[in-house]
């Protein structure tokens, strides 16, 4: 089987880690070229049409963004592209943030954080602010290092702790049970299904 070259376009480091883990888990020979973005959704939105054009020119591109406060993924994709996504562009939207894909592994994340599984949300795609939920769950953690790394200090204006990406990166790489997560998050399941069957088409 020949490698499937793909460029990534992501909002942040955590999204990139999740996508890389998914690509690896497919067992298909994905080969990651460039990584665009990691500077928030504004940049992704401003470049989405360029990537769709690049996809039409024969480049395969995987774009992952958070839905955030947008009403629905199809509406976001239409607004960003103003056209149908080319078949070489895998445009996936995490509902509402990529953190919901981590929350979807209820047992795994509860175990990693050292909290009871009963407090884990059962339908993370329905949560309005998954990142805040994850931070609040970490607040309950019995593991001080994790708690202090993920949760901002009392009274801080920061929305996350000082080593949020580092800690959750460790979780994604070493603890995240992707199979369990697939059953808990329809937006993750949709992204996974596409990655399992994606075949780029080459420009003539």
């Amino acid at each position, binding site marked *: 089987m020949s490698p499937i070259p793909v460029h990534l376009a992501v909002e942040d480091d955590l999204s990139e880690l999740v996508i890389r883990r998914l690509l690896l888990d497919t067992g298909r020979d994905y080969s990651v070229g460039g990584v665009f973005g990691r*500077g928030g959704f504004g940049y992704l939105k401003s470049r989405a049409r360029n990537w769709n054009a690049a996809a039409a020119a024969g480049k395969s591109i995987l774009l992952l963004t958070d839905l955030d406060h947008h009403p629905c993924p199809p509406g976001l994709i239409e607004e960003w592209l103003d056209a149908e996504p080319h078949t070489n562009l895998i445009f996936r939207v995490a509902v509402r943030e990529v953190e919901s894909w981590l929350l979807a592994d209820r047992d795994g994340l509860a175990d990693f954080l050292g909290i009871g599984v009963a407090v884990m949300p059962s339908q993370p795609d329905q949560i309005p602010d998954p990142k805040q939920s994850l931070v609040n769950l970490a607040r309950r953690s019995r593991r001080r290092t994790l708690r202090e*790394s993920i949760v901002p200090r009392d009274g801080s*204006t*920061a929305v996350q702790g*000082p*080593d949020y990406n580092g800690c959750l990166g460790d979780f994604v790489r070493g603890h995240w049970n992707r199979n369990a997560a697939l059953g808990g998050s329809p937006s993750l399941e949709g992204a996974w299904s596409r990655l399992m069957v994606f075949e780029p088409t080459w420009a003539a």
Partner: protein
Amino acid sequence: MPQLLKHPEAFKGPGLSDDPFGKNFLELVARTPETKRRSRLKAIEEALQLAVPQLINLSDVKDETGVPHLEATYTHWRPGAGRQREDQFSDGTLRLIGLFWTLLDGDAPLLLEEPELSLHTAIVKKLPSLFYRMQRKRKRQIFVSTHSWEMLQDKGIGGEEVVMLEPNNEGTIATVASKNSDIRKLLSSGLSIAEVALPRTAPPNLEQLSLNLE
């Protein structure tokens, strides 16, 4: 400063007390007791894996005149190419080695002036969490001065940790970023220090710069 290590012959003289620019860094490493020195260089080599994955076996040696050096092997060189010394390391590699050593050295308050210099922006982005991880066990206070957008876009940095230095015609005003209610609200909405505070520290009337040079 990497140049001080690469070209020591160009910077002769007594140097400054406390050696703020690392002129005597190699002597400092050589003077450190062996066990501590080895374990620190090992820890630095591991941390460097992120940035310079082909560099292995970082160690210190003395040349025939007794002058200390750092040496490492670059795995992508042909076998038997020999080890490289500090004058062949990149500026960024030397800066990271000096930065990591300093972070591991002692528990006194530490002042880092623009640690982003010579480093790739992808590494600069990771510096705040790296500083946090390295001081977590020691509870060491670290002061960092920076203009780096990449470093300040880390959303784990709170406005209460940041002192903005805003130049104006009278001088420079120092303000804790979170004391400003505008900034506080913007940060709490999920924007970063880079977006909210950094632009305020730019010199006033900068847009006239190109005109003045004509």
